[in-house]
């Protein structure tokens, strides 16, 4: 260590002795310059990496925004198409079927009640009634008029009642229906569709006896819970699957469109709970 130190001192003194110019200083400055260059290149690499990450994050954000816009456009188009079909069903086919029913009633009255034709006419009338009610049901499913006119709690209550009567499962709604609170139509429709999809999923896969829909309102938020007492499933396993399941994806996309969060709580043989939470202020 001492030897090295004295060698350095000798060098500097030799350099000084050469022509009076401080060569040692030049040497040190040059070495420092080289070091600075190397450091500058390292700093460049670090800064570049940071910039690259920043740009990638920005690109991902742009991609997410773009995807969201695309999804929103798809959902909007879907809703528009549903409305059109619902109106066509209600105003066109529904009206035609009602007119046919009137005619059938008239014809039925003209027929001898004991005749074979009267029996066929009676059967046709009941088929016609079924067709009319199916058209109404389809039209309502496609365009929930109650949702537009009275709001989310009423629409959900109506949906549950309808499904309760139509299937072997018990479908119950509980929640605050009082008050004039109305939210953004898009939010209401998004939440309604998410609940509709959750109930559909439960009906298709859960083998449950009871499906309960609960709506809780607070000053600044809204929580919807769809729970069933069915077979349940491994959420992680399903979420990691490539074919995640159209139902779950639909719920997630619907919910993400209205700035809400969804949480699915389930495990095999323990039923399923879907929590949808949205800030309303």
């Amino acid at each position, binding site marked *: 260590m001492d030897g090295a130190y004295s060698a350095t001192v000798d060098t500097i003194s030799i350099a000084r002795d*050469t022509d009076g110019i401080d060569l040692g200083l030049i040497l040190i400055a040059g070495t420092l310059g080289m070091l600075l260059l190397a450091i500058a290149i390292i700093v460049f690499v670090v800064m570049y990496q940071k910039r690259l990450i920043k740009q990638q994050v920005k690109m991902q954000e742009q991609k997410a925004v773009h995807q969201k816009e695309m999804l929103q456009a798809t959902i909007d188009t879907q809703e528009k198409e549903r409305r059109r079909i619902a109106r066509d069903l209600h105003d066109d086919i529904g009206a035609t079927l009602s007119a046919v029913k009137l005619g059938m009633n008239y014809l039925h009255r003209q027929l001898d009640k004991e005749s074979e034709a009267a029996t066929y006419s009676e059967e046709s009338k009941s088929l016609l009634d079924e067709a009319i009610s199916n058209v109404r049901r389809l039209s309502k499913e496609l365009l929930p008029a109650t949702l537009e006119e009275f709001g989310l709690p009423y629409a959900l209550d109506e949906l549950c009642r309808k499904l309760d009567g139509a299937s072997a499962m018990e479908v119950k709604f509980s929640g605050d229906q009082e008050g004039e609170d109305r939210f953004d139509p898009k939010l209401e429709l998004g939440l309604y569709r998410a609940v509709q999809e959750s109930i559909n999923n439960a009906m298709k896969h859960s083998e449950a006896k009871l499906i309960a829909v609960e709506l809780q309102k607070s000053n600044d938020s809204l929580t919807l819970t769809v729970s069933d007492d069915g077979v349940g499933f491994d959420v992680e396993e399903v979420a990691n699957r490539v074919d995640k399941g159209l139902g779950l994806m639909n719920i997630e996309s619907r919910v993400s469109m209205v700035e809400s969060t969804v949480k699915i709580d389930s495990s095999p043989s323990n039923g399923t709970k879907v929590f949808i939470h949205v800030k309303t202020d």
Partner: protein
Amino acid sequence: MRPLLVFIGLMVCTELGGTIVSVVFEVKNLFVYNIYIVASYFIITAIFYQQFEHKIIRRALLIVACIYGLYSVLNLLVVQGFFVINSFSLTVESILIISLALVSFAYIFQKVDVIHLEKYAMFWIAAAMLYYYASNLFLFMFSGHLLIANPPKELVGYFTIINTANNFVFNVLLFIAIWTGRTQQQSIQLA
């Protein structure tokens, strides 16, 4: 990659030519290095020319190369001559190449289209050029003190060590550039 290989070829030829001229023909070999100074600038410009896509930058490179070519040929023929090291041309060349390397870095930084910088040949080339020509400038300043009648042995020793180290680092960086350029080309072909 071709201009880089030509540049390495030029370096090898210059070293061989300089040695042959000096040892075999026993003639002052400085003219070989003077020609190298001019030629190397054009090849290095060609290397960077390929990187830049902007027309303005490319045009500027060509204009600067023409001006430098005229200047260094005049210097070689009229001012400093063949048998004295063309220090003016060397200094200007070093400054121009340092600038080119810095512009190259700025260009990479602006475009941000390289995901793995360490696998990008132009980054290594720019680093090699910046390091070598900046250290050359410093050595050149330092070597002025060696041109006295009897330079102290220690000083010559330091000069040689630094010069050799710089050359070593330069060649390592160029080797990495060739290596990364080769793998880059392979991945382009695969894509």
